[in-house]
């Protein structure tokens, strides 16, 4: 059991998890209605992972993400309205509509960006950790990878480098069982990604990614090790995604009713709610209040995104070194 979490902390954790879930469920709906363009990869089902990690991160810590980045953004404190507007491609978006779902970044909050390249994040997180180490800020970096990225050469190189340079970085592998449409038990050469840690000279641990408390406890150790200058760690969060690889994916590579069953059996929000109301002195009324608060926030975010202006045509050639 994780130590030292006050009722207020637990309510914060719930608020973050609930915000991610509502955000993703709503993006799913709005995408189907045609309001959202492009490629969108939803994080619903994995909320405990981003939240249990994010609660340990200071604003000066850095987080590198992946395709499925909305949850990481929210857990790192990126403002939800700006995120929604970005996903709609609006000028008021976090990246002024130029990045979209796959490239949401907010360097002010230490969010180094979702990433469209599988395995793009790990070397970047090493760099952020190197900067923290050289500047003596005591900051750390965390990178979230999927089981897919666990097989990329860039990821292996980054893990090796992190140990060689004793970098304050944590590699979190969110193993949701599928890299795109290919099951991880086919594409990953070992049973547990955590076992790869030993080859790179760092501790590795398997974590129940549906359990906020397990995630929180495991990351506490990894973060402490990083902040103490003892080097990197690897955590494998075993969890599930409740939507397809991208919106529009018919998910026929999954057994029928898998998602329905998962939503019933392994929902991290339900599990968290039951735990905190039974054993941590949280009232259901407090959780319900957060539910309404979050519902309003997401409604407002969608309205904000829908009513925001498009970028100006002249924005096409701004924010880049030179025009031809």
């Amino acid at each position: 059991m994780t130590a030292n979490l006050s009722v207020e902390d637990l309510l914060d954790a719930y608020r973050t998890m609930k915000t991610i879930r509502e955000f993703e469920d709503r993006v799913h709906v709005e995408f189907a209605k045609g309001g959202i363009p492009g490629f969108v990869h939803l994080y619903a089902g994995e909320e405990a992972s981003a939240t249990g990690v994010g609660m340990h991160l200071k604003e000066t810590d850095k987080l590198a993400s992946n395709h499925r980045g909305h949850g990481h953004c929210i857990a790192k404190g990126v403002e939800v309205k700006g995120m929604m507007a970005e996903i709609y491609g609006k000028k008021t978006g976090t990246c002024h509509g130029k990045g979209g779902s796959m490239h949401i970044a907010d360097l002010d909050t230490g969010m180094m960006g979702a990433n469209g390249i599988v395995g793009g994040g790990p070397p970047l997180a090493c760099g952020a950790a190197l900067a923290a180490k050289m500047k003596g800020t005591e900051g750390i970096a965390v990178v979230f990878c999927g089981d897919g990225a666990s097989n990329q050469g860039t990821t292996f190189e980054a893990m090796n480098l992190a140990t060689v340079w004793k970098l304050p970085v944590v590699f979190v592998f969110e193993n949701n069982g599928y890299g795109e449409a290919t099951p991880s038990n086919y594409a990953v050469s070992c049973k547990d990604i955590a076992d790869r840690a030993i080859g790179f000279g760092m501790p590795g641990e398997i974590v129940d990614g549906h359990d906020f408390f397990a995630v929180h406890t495991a990351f506490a150790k990894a973060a402490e090790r990083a902040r103490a200058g003892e080097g990197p760690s690897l955590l494998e969060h075993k969890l599930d995604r409740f939507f397809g690889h991208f919106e529009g994916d018919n998910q026929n590579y999954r057994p029928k009713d898998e998602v329905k069953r998962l939503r019933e059996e392994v929902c991290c929000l339900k599990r968290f709610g039951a735990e905190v109301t039974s054993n941590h002195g949280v009232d259901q009324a407090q959780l319900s209040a957060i539910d309404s608060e979050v519902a309003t926030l997401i409604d407002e975010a969608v309205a904000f995104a829908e009513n925001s202006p498009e970028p100006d045509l002249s924005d096409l050639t701004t924010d880049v070194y030179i025009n031809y």
Partner: protein
Amino acid sequence: MARKITYQQAINEALDQEMARDKSVIIMGEDVAGGSGGDGEMDAWGGVLGVTKGLWGKYGDRVMDTPISEAGYVGAAVGAATAGLRPVCELMFIDFMGVCFDQIYNQAAKFRYMFGGKAETPIVIRTMYGAGFRAAAQHSQCLYNMFTAVPGLKVVIPSSPYDVKGLLIQAMRDNDPVIFCEHKVLYTLEGDVPEESYTIPFGEANIVREGNDVTIVTVGRMVHQAMEAATTLAKEGVSCEVVDLRTTSPLDEETILESVENTGRLVVVDESTPRCSIATDISAIVAQKAFGSLEAPIEMVTAPHTPVPFNGTLEDQYVPSPGKIADAVKIVMGYKA
């Protein structure tokens, strides 16, 4: 017998016919079948847009799902090509060349030359390029110019269902590495395609419209933008000749030069960004070799020198449009020395 099928179906048919003909042809890539090792359906995707769908059912283990490990499997395909197989390797988006480029430009491209002509590397890398899907900066780029710059690679950019089938079969029979660039908005394009197997040779441009006033040289999706501009301009009395390069390496200089010698004016249309592009390359060749024929400075219509924006309005502005092409034609037509 020709019948109408889509660009996507034409690719699938080319792969199917060549796999039936030649057992050394194999396919590998991320989710080219999809579902390997799982409890759901096998051949679940048949490639992210379904281009290779059905081939796993016919050819089984010759259609291989790979981990998301481009350097690993592209490199393995290159190695297999040197050892008797003819892999057709799918790089899902051309943007992902960044994570496997060494295996392509330092390894595959150089073997035949470095090894004194003793190696053949018959690999085809099929890859999806181009803007128009709101797929943002890392899934929308037009990078064929980078491959074209590498000696040892052949670069094919088909514009129609007919061309994509014939050029892909040619690519699979070629003994050099071929980068085969498919524009993502063309997959649903329908056209006449013969049922039987056929090849289209590399390095032979296709004059898709004959004309006398201006030559428009272009490739890939931009052929269609150029044709639309040419149709509009014809109503205004301007006669455009549209040259579809089909392959940028090898490049059919002869057809380009002959056309410009006839028309005296050149507009190059290229979806790449403007520097070090197919547009600059063609312009340089024409300026050097057909200078005396030119009656006006060459115009280039390209994307701006920016990453591809996510926002739809900006992305539409990014892609060279028929309107911009027509404007460029009017500039060369209106030039007074």
